[in-house]
């Protein structure tokens, strides 16, 4: 209840922010980046997706305003997913 | 009966058995420490009414010792086995002159292809697999003309590196010859190589060691390891008859 009496984050601004990023993603995928390489597009799209996800997690889910131990609960699974991905993909690297 | 590992019949067997023995010795030390320790403590510290135990919460130095010793031993063991592991399974470790053998596993039989005099395995195509052509050998391929295909039989020359090209048609099987100490899963959709040198002429059994269905228990084949001379004679005798007209 960290925000009970405090000012709320600018939710509408974040909403606009998210909408703009989504539009940017769509543009990148279908409009102005037709000739860019797949790798570049992939990287940029992933950055945009993670950016949007971070906005949701930090502001809408209030992770930005929580204490470190609750953030730990939220972030704990992420390294595990990366380990699983790395091992699964390594089948095809050699 | 034999109370130890099976006879050794491949280049890997002596070293694997050596590692097995080494680990047995390494593990015997903590095993006896713990079991004898428990026995001694049971008799020595049997409780008596009105008495109390020794009040202690631990000893950091002792705990450091029994953390450090296993850590060092295990890392050393890991490093030692790794070079051997790379030699056995490393994808680039197959000797260049290894004799290629095709092993095609299906429910519930092993189909073995020997390359014949040209030393090359013919191409196999999944869509060609049929009752008459169980491995899907592409007979238009030059390497396929002299290939010898046998069912549940594998004939190998002794003393020469052999590389088995393992393919599976339906489910996972596992190529396992206890005397060779060689085991490799045969996975549908994957092309896996397993190499070894059969050292002792004789007859051995291939077992399927991965549950593959109802007939898993009888998915059994025989390996015959010949001396090079015997092997050549056998191969000559079993060479496919060239068909008139061609296909």
């Amino acid at each position, binding site marked *: *209840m960290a*925000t*009970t009496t405090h000012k*709320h984050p600018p*939710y*509408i601004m*974040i*909403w606009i922010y*998210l*909408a703009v990023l*989504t539009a940017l*993603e*769509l543009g*990148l*995928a*279908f409009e102005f980046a037709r000739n860019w390489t797949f790798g570049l*597009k*992939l990287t940029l*799209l*992933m950055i*945009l*997706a993670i950016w*949007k*996800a971070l906005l*949701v*997690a930090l*502001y*809408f*889910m209030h992770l930005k305003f*929580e*204490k470190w*131990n*609750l953030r730990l*609960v*939220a972030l*704990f*699974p*992420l390294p*595990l*997913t990366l380990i*699983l*991905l790395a091992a*699964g*993909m390594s*089948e*095809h690297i050699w | 009966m034999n109370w130890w590992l099976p006879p050794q019949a491949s280049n890997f067997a002596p070293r694997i058995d050596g590692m097995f023995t080494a680990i047995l010795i390494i593990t015997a030390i903590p095993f006896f420490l713990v079991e004898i320790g428990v026995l001694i403590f049971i008799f020595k510290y049997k409780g008596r009414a009105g008495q109390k135990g020794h009040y202690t919460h631990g000893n950091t130095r002792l705990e450091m010792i029994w953390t450090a010793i296993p850590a060092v031993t295990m890392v050393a063991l890991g490093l030692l086995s790794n070079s051997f592991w790379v030699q056995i399974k490393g994808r680039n470790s197959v000797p260049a002159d290894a004799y290629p053998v095709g092993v095609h596993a299906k429910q519930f039989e092993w189909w073995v292809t020997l390359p014949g005099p040209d030393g090359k395995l013919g191409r196999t195509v999944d869509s060609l697999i049929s009752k008459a052509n169980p491995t899907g050998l592409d007979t238009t391929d030059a390497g396929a003309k002299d290939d010898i295909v046998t069912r549940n039989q594998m004939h190998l020359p002794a003393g020469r590196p052999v590389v088995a090209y393992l393919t599976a048609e339906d489910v996972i099987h596992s190529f396992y010859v206890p005397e060779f100490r060689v085991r490799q899963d045969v996975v549908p959709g994957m092309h896996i190589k397993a190499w070894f040198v059969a050292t002792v002429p004789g007859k051995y059994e291939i077992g399927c060691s991965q549950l593959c269905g109802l007939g898993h228990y009888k998915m059994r084949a025989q390996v015959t390891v010949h001396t090079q001379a015997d092997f050549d004679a056998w191969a000559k005798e079993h060479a496919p008859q060239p068909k008139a007209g061609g296909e």
Partner: protein
Amino acid sequence: MSHAMAVGQGGPMDPPFPAERGVDVYNKKLGMWVFLASEVMFFAALIGSYIILRFGAPGPWALPGVVLNIKITAFNTFLLICSSVSMVKAYAAVSDGDVGKMKFWLLMTILGGACFVGIQVFEYIHLVERGFVPAGVREGSELAEMVAKGELPGATMGLYGSTFFTMTGFHGFHVTCGVISMLFLYLTKALPGKYTQQDHAGIEVVGLYWHFVDLVWIILFTIVYLI
């Protein structure tokens, strides 16, 4: 004593005695975060499988926008983002003590979520009509012709169908669960006026779930529809 009361909000599930403090959040909220951690692993299994399968796919993947309808999904994405904002507005309203506004925003959220599910069902029906099914491409359909003409890579369409329907299907299932639980809270708690400035754990907790579902969709939309 006052220190201890800050731990919980005095809800029925909170320890009624001054338990030692854990992570300084009340049980329901902590429980939801812990649950979300497990949800991350669940979606990691599905999304991870998609990434691993696509990484090792035997051929090129279908180009984005050929099979899937991007316009309608882009609108759906926007809808879900809006419902996330309305959810957080509902939470902000109730923590400021404005219960009426909270009811309005919660209703907006429910409507947004329900529309999302409706559009997704519509999208599924449309896809199946065109021949896109979990097993890949249905024989004799419009997409099967495109595969025959070489406009779609036949070798990977099976994987495409499998992963697409599993991932988006389970996301849709989560959205549906969210809508149902929000509707439940709206009818049993919000309308009877049980949420106050002091006690509105339900709004915050279901909100966390809702934002998580939104977050998953943000990832899914990018990796499934745009790449």
